[in-house]
């Protein structure tokens, strides 16, 4: 029981399969194809700065929409009986168990030309294209990651001490004031971890933009995937930039949030 030795296999495992690969990314990013030290990969990576900005924009938009949609859901969850709570949580989680690609594919069918949405809306006399634009990518993203926003906010909210709420009510606060002064401030840690859990994967994901977006909606993940086939150095440079960016984001988020909410 006292033994630290039990962690040795895993420490070795991490060294080989977590640390060394990261070091390799770093080393590959600073080399040219011949293997000499070079900054060319970063110069080439810089050519993709618009894709980078676009990815951040899509991720930001998706995270904001997830937050707006998820916050009321989390709040309503806390108002339910325990058994209803479990059922509703399950209903929210089930789509997450479907394969990531199948969920994108479902939206592809739904949004395509002459697809169900197009048909339904054209009965009402509305015609348009619903796929191949930034909006479709954002919808797909929100669909993929919405539960990641609901659950942490709900977890934090359900831990709020009922006495605090009753105290506020005794002291004369009405429902809105209780929400503004007690529930909302205390739910911030959950919001922070929700934002982290949605923003990080949506900024770095690939395939969503390829299948739902148009020519201008390529995201940084798609670029890494494509470029790695022909140019590992530039691919590594972009990956390194992405990783550093995400680490900075996480550190910033950690300054405001509390770690317990994530685990």
């Amino acid at each position: 029981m006292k033994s630290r030795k039990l962690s040795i296999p895993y420490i070795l495992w991490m060294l080989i399969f977590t640390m060394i690969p990261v070091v390799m990314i770093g080393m590959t990013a600073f080399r040219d194809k011949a293997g000499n030290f070079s900054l060319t990969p970063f110069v080439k990576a810089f050519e993709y700065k618009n894709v980078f900005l676009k990815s951040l924009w899509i991720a930001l938009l998706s995270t904001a929409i997830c937050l707006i949609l998820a916050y009321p859901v989390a709040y309503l969850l806390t108002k339910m009986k325990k058994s209803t709570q479990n059922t509703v949580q399950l209903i929210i989680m089930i789509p997450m168990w479907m394969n990531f690609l199948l969920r994108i594919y479902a939206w592809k069918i739904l949004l395509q030309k002459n697809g169900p949405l197009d048909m339904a809306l054209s009965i009402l006399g509305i015609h348009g294209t619903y796929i191949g634009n930034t909006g479709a990518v954002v919808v797909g993203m929100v669909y993929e990651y919405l539960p990641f926003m609901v659950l942490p906010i709900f977890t934090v909210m359900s831990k709020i001490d009922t006495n605090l709420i009753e105290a506020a009510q005794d002291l004369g606060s009405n429902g809105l004031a209780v929400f503004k002064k007690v529930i909302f401030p205390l739910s911030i840690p959950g919001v922070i971890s929700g934002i982290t859990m949605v923003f990080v994967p949506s900024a770095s994901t690939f395939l969503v933009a390829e299948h739902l977006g148009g020519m201008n909606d390529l995201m940084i993940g798609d670029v890494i995937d494509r470029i790695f086939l022909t140019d590992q150095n530039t691919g590594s440079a972009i990956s390194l930039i992405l990783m550093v960016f995400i680490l900075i984001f996480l550190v910033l988020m950690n300054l405001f949030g509390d770690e317990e909410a994530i685990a």
Partner: protein
Amino acid sequence: MKKNKLGVVSKIYLGLIFLFLYVPIGVLIFMSFNKGRNVTVWKGFSFKWYGELFKSKELMNALGNTLIIALLASIFATILGTAAAIGIHNFKGKTRAVIQNVSNLPIISPDIVMGVSLMLLFSFVGVLLNFEMGFWTVLISHVCFCVPFVVLNVMPRLRRMDRSIYDAALDLGCNQWQAFYKVVIHELMPGILSGMLMSFTYSMDDVVITHFTRGAKFNNLSTKIFEMLRKQVRPTVNALSALLFLAIILVLVIINVYERRAEKRAAKRS
């Protein structure tokens, strides 16, 4: 918080969210019964794509691979992760914080970065030792992203565990090994099981990391669907989705019933 009944507006809001979550899946499943080859145009009811699905050796093979990888990865990750959690628990202060932070790296770093970094490692070692990426590299990669979840699930249980039970077992004549598996493992079991379940589902769901570490020949369900989506989609994919969805619901219902029973038993005992 007070458990008042939800108002009409709240109910409608939840209903709309549920619609958003389930309409795409509903459409996907509905189209699996389409007679035509095209996924858009409805040409009448048919089970033919389910037949095609079971006849497709490639898809069945891919399904087998997915299940084998998920099973092996979650078992291996559970053993490695549980041992690691117990070991890490015995470290103090800074060392422990460093180990835990490194362990969390695969969770926080983007999938795609982890995928390409492992690919770099495997192709480098592959040239040295003359092997190609395939089953084993995918398995190793899956273990990599599963272990942190096991550690995260077991750690809180360890923190809550009462050390004196272990000492009591020793006093009552257990040797160290007996005390370990009769007391410690027993106490950690719920954490171990949920870590394993999480590993299994993450392994089933993964696309990105498998895509980068599978090499040229190995395919699981994710990479097979990936290929089909890029080329030509047939309603077999829809039939597959419908069956997967059914399987998920079944598993969840079984787990739920099991948990309810366990709760009832626990309630009776106390």
